[in-house]
């Protein structure tokens, strides 16, 4: 029997049976004896001075156990931590203002929590919210980014001289000189507005204090259970070992469920300890629209300088980034925008300056794509406008600027979000572009189909865009692999990164199964429970497969060595002559039935009597860690055919093609699924979803009736093709894929729709669109 390939196979998911039968545990499913329920009183004002909170009547209501305001928290009231310190960019200005657990003297966005009611049921807790008397003096709301920066503007944080949260400039070469020597310079203003992450599962926290074990258990819909455990231990004065955080099945993450130390996340465990009873809070959808972090508000003033052949000489971009009322996540989002703008192209001179702005809106932290969308939108749109100006085909202008395979590793000479220089590890971009052209039949469409359909009065358009995505950043993740002693073959794998639907149970099992020569079904994966594994950071930045996957590989490899070493003694053969396959070790060329099963070998690895050789570690178990030097750079090309009805401004996506390169694919079925979901999210961002704030800072569409997620009739069939340019930065050769699909969609949508409506001469420089906005653009262009 020879070892079987598992990595790269379409293996169906091991976690699915639990999810399909309703037996998977989500946080809101946790029910404990004596459990209390929480509701939060939240600000109705975008900006106000909080004068008085009177909870007397609420406390008297039958069934209410406690009501807490900021004043009741005592020393526990403190602003949250700065989660991601900014990279060391020269001349950087950064004003950290992190969120507070309950508002004390000022309300800074609608939905900011003011008081916490704990009652015997959620229904009673919500009843009691009406009993709380609030006195507040409204202040002018800071909503518009440019107005926020004008002299004399109302300040979100009065201890600061302005609403500037941060200012950063990154440069490569000398853009001004490049522009002076350019044949053509194209300048435009680009707008990108906010959307919701909209995981179908809202956030939830359940906490239970066990006074006898002196242990706190917290079930949390978090993407980062280990940092939450460590932070809670510190806040509550407990040892890290006294806190167990479990992120069980989580119903979609998309960024905002990262280690936020959200007010609710910090207060529910505190209340459980204080009251001596388990406490649960589950966010409702309306709260989610106000209190779960959001993303995407930016305004870019950008220009590109080119020679007459369309070769990029340089890019200059000055942009404003809406960070919302607080900035606990540092500068990850605008730095991603800044870095991703460079794309798969050679940009010899680059100057990028951004100002992050405090506003009276919900906090901004990464949402699937995390700022990369904006960068791709700006560069791709600039190239489209340049192509028109220079009368070069849009594909050709891209082709002329793509990096060549011999240029890797390619250093872009600016800093990425992980503080490492933005260096692309590997890539092969032109074949991906050619494959996308072929799949969508670009040249035939442009030469034959489009003129024919246009002559028939139909508005059909094609789009094609390229992008890169920084993925798989550090610092590190870990994994422990254990062969379970006993009959048969059972392997346990524990890792710190939780799952929000990405298929970790299966992909990680595939890696371990291949290394140990067992079946995927034999590998029992535990993720997201700090009692099982307590070193690591979390699921973000498309890094699970790259960083945690590599840690799984390293731990399994070490266990494999232990297996072979022990088996060589047992079978009296050299390790080089041993084969590990089918859950057994046997001597090469010998009878496989004469080998030793791994479970039996694990029994021998933990003797109860006798002597062991000096230095022997017990068990067939190993823990290993993996931390890359820097992130790996995935890439892709998306292409789309659309038909637009100029009378209704409805857009029908006729075809959608994705050619994607995430390095070595562990499970193509899972990778396809990640891309499908990302594209759907991107289509939502492009045409359906927009968080509409009025000038008072009130969110006008805070429900799924008014905020439209794309449905099954809106998302087209997506055709995918994989290319594998392996990363040299990890043993698997993998790159991340979780965010990929969502990143280029806005740019693609704009290009394809503009092409369909080329007779109107309109230009699309903003995302999201909607039929209304598109109709207005068509009218304006006519």
């Amino acid at each position, binding site marked *: 029997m020879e070892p079987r390939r598992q990595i790269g196979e379409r293996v169906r998911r091991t976690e699915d049976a639990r999810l399909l039968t309703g037996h998977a545990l989500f946080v809101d499913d946790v029910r404990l004896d004596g459990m209390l329920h929480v509701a939060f009183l939240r600000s109705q004002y975008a900006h106000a001075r909080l004068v008085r909170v009177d909870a007397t009547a609420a406390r008297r209501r039958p069934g209410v156990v406690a009501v807490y305001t900021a004043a009741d928290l005592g020393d526990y009231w403190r602003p949250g931590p700065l989660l991601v310190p900014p990279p060391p960019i020269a001349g950087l200005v950064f004003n950290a203002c992190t969120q507070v657990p309950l508002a004390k003297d000022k309300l800074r966005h609608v939905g900011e929590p003011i008081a916490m009611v704990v009652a015997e049921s959620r229904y009673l807790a919500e009843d009691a919210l009406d009993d709380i008397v609030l006195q507040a003096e409204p202040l002018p709301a800071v909503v518009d980014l440019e107005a926020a920066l004008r002299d004399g503007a109302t300040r979100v944080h009065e201890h600061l001289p302005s609403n500037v949260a941060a200012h950063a400039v990154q440069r490569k070469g000398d853009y001004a000189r490049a522009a002076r020597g350019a044949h053509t310079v194209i300048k435009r203003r680009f707008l990108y507005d906010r959307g919701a992450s909209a995981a179908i599962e809202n956030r939830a926290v359940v906490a239970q204090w066990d006074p006898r074990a002196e242990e706190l258990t917290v079930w949390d819909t978090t993407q980062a259970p280990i940092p939450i455990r460590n932070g809670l231990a510190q806040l509550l004065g407990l040892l890290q070992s006294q806190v167990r955080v479990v992120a069980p099945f989580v119903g979609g993450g998309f960024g905002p469920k990262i280690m936020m130390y959200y007010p609710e996340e910090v207060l529910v465990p505190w209340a459980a300890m204080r009251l001596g009873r388990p406490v649960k809070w589950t966010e409702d959808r309306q709260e989610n629209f106000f209190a779960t972090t959001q993303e995407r508000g930016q305004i870019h003033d950008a220009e590109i300088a080119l020679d007459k052949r369309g070769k990029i000489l340089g890019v200059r971009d000055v942009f404003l980034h809406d960070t919302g009322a607080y900035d606990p996540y540092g500068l990850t989002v605008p730095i991603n925008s800044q870095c991703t703008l460079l794309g798969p192209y050679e940009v010899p001179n680059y100057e990028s300056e951004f100002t992050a702005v405090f506003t009276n809106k919900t906090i901004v932290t990464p949402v699937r794509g995390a700022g990369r969308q904006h960068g791709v939108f700006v560069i791709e749109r600039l190239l489209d406008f340049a192509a028109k100006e220079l009368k070069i085909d849009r594909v050709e202008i891209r082709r002329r600027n793509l990096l060549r395979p011999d240029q890797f590793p390619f250093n872009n000479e600016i800093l990425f979000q992980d503080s490492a220089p933005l260096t692309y590890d590997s890539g092969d971009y032109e074949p991906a572009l050619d494959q996308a052209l072929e799949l969508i039949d670009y040249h035939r469409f442009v030469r034959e189909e489009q003129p024919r359909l246009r002559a028939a009065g139909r508005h059909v358009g094609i789009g094609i865009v390229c992008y890169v995505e920084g993925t798989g950043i550090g610092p590190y993740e870990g994994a422990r692999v254990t062969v379970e002693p006993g009959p048969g073959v059972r392997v346990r794998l524990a890792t710190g990164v939780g799952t929000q639907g990405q298929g970790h149970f299966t992909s990680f099992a595939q890696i371990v199964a291949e290394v140990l020569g067992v079946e995927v079904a034999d590998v029992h994966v535990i993720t997201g429970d700090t009692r099982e594994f307590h070193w690591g950071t979390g699921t973000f930045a498309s890094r699970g497969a790259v960083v945690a996957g590599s840690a799984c590989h390293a731990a399994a490899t070490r266990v494999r060595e232990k297996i072979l070493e022990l088996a060589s003694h047992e079978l009296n053969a050299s390790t080089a002559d041993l084969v590990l396959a089918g859950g057994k070790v046997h001597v090469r060329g010998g009878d496989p039935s004469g080998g030793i099963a791994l479970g039996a070998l694990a029994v021998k690895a933990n003797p109860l009597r006798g002597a062991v050789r000096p230095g022997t570690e017990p068990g067939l178990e190993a823990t290993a860690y993996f931390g890359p030097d820097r992130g790996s750079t995935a890439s892709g090309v998306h292409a789309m055919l659309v038909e637009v009805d100029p009378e209704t401004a409805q857009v029908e996506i006729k075809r959608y093609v994705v050619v994607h390169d995430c390095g070595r694919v562990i499970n193509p079925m899972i990778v396809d699924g990640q891309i499908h*979901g990302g594209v759907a999210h991107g289509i939502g961002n492009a045409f359906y979803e927009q968080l509409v704030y009025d000038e008072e800072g009130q969110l006008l569409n805070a429900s799924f009736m008014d905020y439209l997620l794309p449905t099954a009739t809106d998302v087209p069939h997506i055709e995918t093709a994989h290319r594998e340019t392996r990363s040299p930065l990890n043993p698997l050769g993998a790159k991340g894929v979780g965010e990929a699909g969502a990143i280029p969609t806005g740019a693609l949508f704009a290009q394809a729709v503009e092409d369909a409506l080329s007779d109107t001469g309109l230009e699309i420089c903003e995302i999201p669109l909607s039929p209304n906005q598109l109709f207005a653009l068509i009218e304006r262009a006519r």
Partner: protein
Amino acid sequence: MKTVDLTVNGVTARRSVEPRLLLSDFLRNELGLTGTHVGCEHGVCGACTVLLDGEAVRSCLLFAVQADGHQVATVEGLSAGAVEDGALHPLQAAFREAHGLQCGFCTPGILMTLVPFLRDHPHPDEREIREALSGNLCRCTGYQNVVAAVQLACDGTPTPDR
């Protein structure tokens, strides 16, 4: 308080509840059937879909007292109960085979929407499947493999996807 008598997954239940208690909360908290998920509580996302006398309904838009005297079916009643291979309902098995779920939160509602749909439309085309799914929001899958799973459940041939 009002008494409700109903049958859930073939088992009778009698509880005394507040008239304002939602059916979704009743199923989850009174009966412990937490497979029915709550995503929006305003009838849009479809995650809480259950069957009331065989028809798909949003359990967040019904009060428990409205189910008095009725038959309710939830995702827990779809398969034989055990999670081994053989116990899955053919639709559940097709979802696993076609990767029709990712985080799985919306999945119970999608399954319960499809049960009566496929009963009434055993051979739907892709457009009909997408129409049937259009009242269930999913943020993970882009719906493509959900559609493929339904096609697989109907005739064993999912849309080829590579």
